[in-house]
């Protein structure tokens, strides 16, 4: 079985290499049939990779411990769901998942665009093939999931903290995002190589970018939720390099999603868009590498990891190669129009882009800082939370404000008079909200207060925009308010979906600011019957119980929660012990108040004599972070939903040019 798996991967490598080399030759020499065979090779590579993935999944489910990968990452007692999720629990399996998604996406993207953008696809195929070749090569030669060993009686098991439903969904979601960004990158390169630098590459990949970006965002929130419920420190994001690894490409892709609209509408920022898509793609490769090898603590671990030098080489090659390509095509990327005024929709998009990229690059700087300092001074220096928090405030708060300004400002040139009239209502609401918050005691944290006032402003301007649009639509076509509202969204899915995403980001900002700026923490040792106070809660410890489980045993401390003298709930934080993995796993308890969005987190600990220690955190508005995830998904779906009218419009717009290209 392992031999078949290896053979399937070798075949995948041969096919994607063929797609890259034959595809490039065909595109260069304009050999139509050869180009088609390269595209078919890409489709076939998906088949062989799917076969290899199926074999690995089967080996996992059969507990075939003659596979080194299966023996290292699972055990017999492991529940089936986690046995399957061990597919992406280790380096080899997750590289295989990367290749599977990449070949699947490549096949789909090539297939869907083979008629509407033939001239682009001819050059996109070799780019996709080249990226896939890199991963296929790693899987065949460096880090094979099909390595075998003499079968052992039982495997080493999966790390207990990964045995959580959120950890089942989080990595594949992130990978869909990382890999999805390959498609716009490949089409961008295809456009440059084929010298077809009109907006078609953007239009062909808009939904790919949006999907990848949505998956990346949702994947991060799933990871944050996992950290919150499983890692047991009452937080959800710690600026760990691995977390930053997903945040950086997401920020770059966010900038890209905004700036392509400027290129579509006004024919500007062509070079900038190329640079953004290159940045997003390189960061997604870098992110894959970070999560898979855990570098950046030191240059030494960079070179020690078996895949490290390969990734470093690949990232350098694509950065240099794609930048050189952009440089050589600069004359083709000249803007059609210029920015007319610094007070216009275009300008706010430009500010938004600069802020997003600045935030992204400062995070990158923080992540690679240990490498830089080690190279210069001989010893690595790390930056921590204060560094990132500082820049999140410096760049993030203006971004929040821009989200309220951008949608209301006119294209091309806005007059100060019109602007001040438009913003009268939202700014007034924000001012009232800010004063109300100060009265309510939110002034204890200035960044928190600023974030809340800005959030009120953005929400007010989004609602205002919806009301204005609905009113105009109803005046135009009559009918009910609800009918006008749905038809408004239905006819401008991208725009209003975008506003819903903005609302989600505001909810996220409110949740983050609330849970950080206004949280309360207490930690105490508790004897049976003893109580402690945290926020408005009184916690009484009622002793611990021990129970045997299939994988070991668990201990739970019974904690009665009182609020205002009233008993509200018994929470049972504790520890699970896993025999096979020889490890404890802290199981914190959370009480979410649905009405106020306030969370009470109990993190338990026992010392060696069995004494119970309790860390209690009261975090206001944490719920909003998870609700933001749902709103974010909703907004993305609205923007993604296929729109026949839009397709027809685009087809008409680019039809004459395509006819010319095909002639």
């Amino acid at each position, binding site marked *: 079985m392992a031999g078949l798996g290896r053979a399937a991967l070798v075949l995948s490598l041969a096919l994607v290499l063929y797609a890259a080399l034959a595809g490039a030759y065909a595109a260069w020499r304009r050999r139509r049939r050869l180009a088609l065979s390269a595209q078919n090779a890409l489709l076939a590579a998906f088949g062989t990779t799917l076969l290899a993935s199926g074999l690995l999944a089967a080996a996992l489910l059969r507990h075939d411990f003659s596979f080194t990968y299966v023996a*290292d990452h699972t055990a017999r007692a492991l529940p089936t769901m986690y046995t399957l999720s061990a597919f992406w629990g280790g380096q080899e399996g997750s590289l295989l998942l990367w290749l599977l998604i990449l070949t699947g996406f490549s096949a789909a993207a090539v297939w869907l665009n083979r008629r509407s953008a033939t001239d682009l696809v001819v050059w996109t195929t070799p780019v996709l093939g080249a990226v896939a070749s890199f991963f296929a090569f790693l899987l065949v030669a460096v880090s094979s999931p099909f390595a075998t060993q003499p079968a052992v009686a039982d495997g080493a098991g999966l790390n207990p903290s990964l045995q959580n439903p959120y*950890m089942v969904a989080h990595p594949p979601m992130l990978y869909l995002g990382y890999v999805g960004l390959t498609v716009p990158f490949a089409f961008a390169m295809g456009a440059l190589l084929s010298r077809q630098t009109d907006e078609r590459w953007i239009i062909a990949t808009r939904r790919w970018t949006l999907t990848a970006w949505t998956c990346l965002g949702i994947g991060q929130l799933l990871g944050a939720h996992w950290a919150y419920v499983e890692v047991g420190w009452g937080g959800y994001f710690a600026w760990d390099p*691995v977390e930053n690894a997903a945040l950086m490409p997401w920020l770059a892709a966010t900038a890209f999603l905004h700036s392509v609209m400027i290129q579509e509408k006004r024919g*500007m920022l062509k070079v900038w868009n190329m640079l953004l898509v290159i940045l997003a793609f390189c960061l997604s490769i870098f992110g894959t590498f970070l999560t898979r090898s855990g570098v950046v603590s030191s240059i030494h671990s960079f070179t020690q990891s078996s895949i490290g030098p390969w990734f470093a080489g690949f990232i350098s090659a694509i950065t240099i190669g794609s930048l050189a390509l952009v440089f050589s095509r600069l004359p083709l990327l000249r803007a059609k129009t*210029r920015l007319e005024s610094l007070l216009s929709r275009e300008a706010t998009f430009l500010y938004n882009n*600069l802020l997003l990229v600045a935030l992204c690059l400062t995070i990158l700087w923080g992540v690679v800082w240990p490498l830089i300092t080690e190279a210069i001074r001989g010893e690595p220096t*790390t930056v921590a939370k204060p560094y990132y928090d*500082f820049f999140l405030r410096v760049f993030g708060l203006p971004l929040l404000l821009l989200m309220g300004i951008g949608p209301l400002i006119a294209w091309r040139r806005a007059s100060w008079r019109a602007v001040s009239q438009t913003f009268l209502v939202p700014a007034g609401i924000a001012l009232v909200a800010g004063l109300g918050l100060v009265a309510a005691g939110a002034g204890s944290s200035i960044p928190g207060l600023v974030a809340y006032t800005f959030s009120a402003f953005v929400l007010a301007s989004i609602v205002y925009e919806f009301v204005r649009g609905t009113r105009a639509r109803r005046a135009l076509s009559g009918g009910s308010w609800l009918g006008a509202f749905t038809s408004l969204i239905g006819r401008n899915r991208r725009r209003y979906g975008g506003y819903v995403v903005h609302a989600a980001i505001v909810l996220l900002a409110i949740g983050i600011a609330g849970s950080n700026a206004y949280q309360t923490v207490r930690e105490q040792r508790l004897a049976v019957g003893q109580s402690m106070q945290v926020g408005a809660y009184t916690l009484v410890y009622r002793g611990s119980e021990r129970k045997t489980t299939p994988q070991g045993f668990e201990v739970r401390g019974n904690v009665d929660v009182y609020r205002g003298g009233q008993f509200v709930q018994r929470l049972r934080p504790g520890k699970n012990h896993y025999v096979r993995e020889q490890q404890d796993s802290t199981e914190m308890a959370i009480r979410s108040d649905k009405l106020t969005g306030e969370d009470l987190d109990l993190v338990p600990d026992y010392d060696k004599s069995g004494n119970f220690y309790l860390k209690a955190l009261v975090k206001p508005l944490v719920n909003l972070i998870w609700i933001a995830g749902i709103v974010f998904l909703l907004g993305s779906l609205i923007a993604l939903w296929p729109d026949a009218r839009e397709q027809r419009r685009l087809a008409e717009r680019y039809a004459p040019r395509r006819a010319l290209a095909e002639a």
Partner: protein
Amino acid sequence: MARKRSPARLVIALSVAAVLGVFLLYTSIAGGGTPSLQPGQLKGRTGHVTLGGVVVRQAGDARSSGGLRFTLKDRKGSTVVPVVYHGTVPDMFREGREVAVQGTLRDGIFVAQRDTLVTKCPSKYVDKKN
């Protein structure tokens, strides 16, 4: 060039300047971060550092007044440093695993700051085979 300069360039130039300014301001106030060292590089250092290494021996209890006592070894090398630590111990903490902890070296013993012990992220952690 006869063409009038686009205001976009002005904006970009000003923003780059602003970002650099903010950056310099930040680094001058907050300093350049915490040095992260391995036991072999610790000798003679008196400042606050992050110490990273492999746990070789452990005894005691992080919740007792005596604290958790363990020894950290270089990832590659043999220098060891004794560490005394109080506070929360991550689930992943075990002999043979790589951890990082903040603190200062006092009389040959690394006195760790409370609750700063972290282990490497589990998703990329694979146990060394014996």
